């Protein structure tokens, strides 16, 4: 027998041990605690948005066994990330690896600290791809799927490569049924934006909307069955400045159909803020093309 298996096994447990100080327990929901990754030695912690169910009384469990208070700096539900500030300093910050440096087949470890100790599962990179958009409308820089087992409480924890660098934040809620991580590039953007502004910029129109069924003739003409009726238009809002009126039915925005509330929310991303985009509406049964400048929410 060669020494390979023993060497590999020892290397993996050493990697887990070495990464331990970078991984914290996040106590911010009623049931079982989740995990987080140390972003900076000054106490900035990154975790998953969906495990931070309350905005205060958040506690962080550190590797040395102590528990400290933390505040919520901000969150981005669209990419399922949240940034916390723990009352701690001299923490060990994680180092990151870009998804471009990974290949399908690379060994990866998922780590978590739902209890006192660091836990680990092993897998490989199953699929790597380009940018994609989450169901909640969040822009993710790379599709990073692994076959690591997401053990209870692993959300918010790191996906480590074989050299111990963090390739992403594991989330069990981005895509159900498969292990998909939010890659380092997306994490970096979200953390920097949240630290600077307290939240991610979102597009804003200033309307209250309700999906409605279009008349048969319009369904034929527009190739869609439903649109979004403006139930209210706030004064001086981007919608009001674009001459949109209460009762108008929005059918496309920036060339994309808006059949459901989700479809409009997905279009109101940060990068559309300040942009003037075409808006196709139905007013008094007639199709009209207007423009609207997306505001910041």
């Amino acid at each position, binding site marked *: *027998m*060669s020494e*390979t*298996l*023993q060497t*590999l*096994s*020892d290397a*993996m*447990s*050493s*990697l*887990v*041990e070495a990464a331990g100080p970078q991984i914290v327990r996040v106590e911010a929901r009623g049931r*079982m*605690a989740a995990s987080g990754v140390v972003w900076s030695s000054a106490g900035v912690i990154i975790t998953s948005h969906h495990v931070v169910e309350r905005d205060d009384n958040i506690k962080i469990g550190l590797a040395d066994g102590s528990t400290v208070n933390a505040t919520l700096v901000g969150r981005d539900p669209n990419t399922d990330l949240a940034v916390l500030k723990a009352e701690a300093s001299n923490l060990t910050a994680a180092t990151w690896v870009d998804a471009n440096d990974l290949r399908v087949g690379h060994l990866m*470890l998922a780590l978590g600290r*739902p*209890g*006192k*100790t*660091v*836990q*680990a*599962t*092993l897998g490989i990179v199953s699929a790597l791809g380009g940018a994609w958009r989450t169901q909640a409308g969040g822009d993710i820089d790379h599709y990073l799927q692994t076959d*690591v*087992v997401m*053990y*209870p*409480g692993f959300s918010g924890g790191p996906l480590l490569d074989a050299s111990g660098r963090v390739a992403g934040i594991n989330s069990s809620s981005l895509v159900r049924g498969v292990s998909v991580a939010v890659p380092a590039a997306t994490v970096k953007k979200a953390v920097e934006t949240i630290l600077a502004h307290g939240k991610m910029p979102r597009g804003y129109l200033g309307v209250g909307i309700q999906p409605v069924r279009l008349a048969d003739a319009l369904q034929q003409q527009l190739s869609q069955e439903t649109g979004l009726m403006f139930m209210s238009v706030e004064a001086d809002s981007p919608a009001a400045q674009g001459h949109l009126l209460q009762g108008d039915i929005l059918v496309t925005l920036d060339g994309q159909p808006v059949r459901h509330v989700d479809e409009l929310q997905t279009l109101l991303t940060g990068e559309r803020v300040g942009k003037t985009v075409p808006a196709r509406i139905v007013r008094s049964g007639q199709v009209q093309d207007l423009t609207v400048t997306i505001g910041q929410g």
Partner: protein
Amino acid sequence: MSTVLQNFSNDLAAVGEQVLRSLVQVRNGKRGAGAGTIWHADGLIITNAHVVDGIRQGRTGDGALTVLLSDGRELPAYVLARDPEHDLAALRVDAQNLPTITLGDSRQLQAGQFVLCLGFPWGVTGGATSGIVIDAGAALPEVRDPHHEWIAASLHLRPGHSGGPMVDVQGRLVGINTMMNGPDVGVAVPVHVAKAFLKQAMAQMYTRV
């Protein structure tokens, strides 16, 4: 690069082969089958209590219990002692010079370490599954019973693995396969818990003699 992978694969297979000799199938009459591990050359076998559920203790047992050795012999067995709380049972067969398993130190287990589990998943002889230790010890927050010590590993235990060995990369027994916690997580009783159980069981027997 490929040499490392081949070595890894061959090493894993060698560990499996080595452990297979000490793996037995425990046949519990009509109630299906589980696995067991040869602890002592004189016929002492460790398994789960739930594998011999319903079998009466002692030599006067129901006669329904047999053990299939790796050399193909099927021997009558009886339940020497059991501890349902830790889900452990000690069986005895009338045989000598059986291939025993080397005992490891489950107190030294660390998250990330490779382990291999063997048994009879869905009845398949010597079915192996490998993965890494997720965590070991008491108070694993997600295991139902927080009062006992467990080993949680990222591998695929199935019905029929119960009572079989969980070994480290040297083939040393570190745990007794006990249950699955979902399809991707196997839970084992640490071997030091099994040791304590056997020690106590033997002590009780001696006082009776």
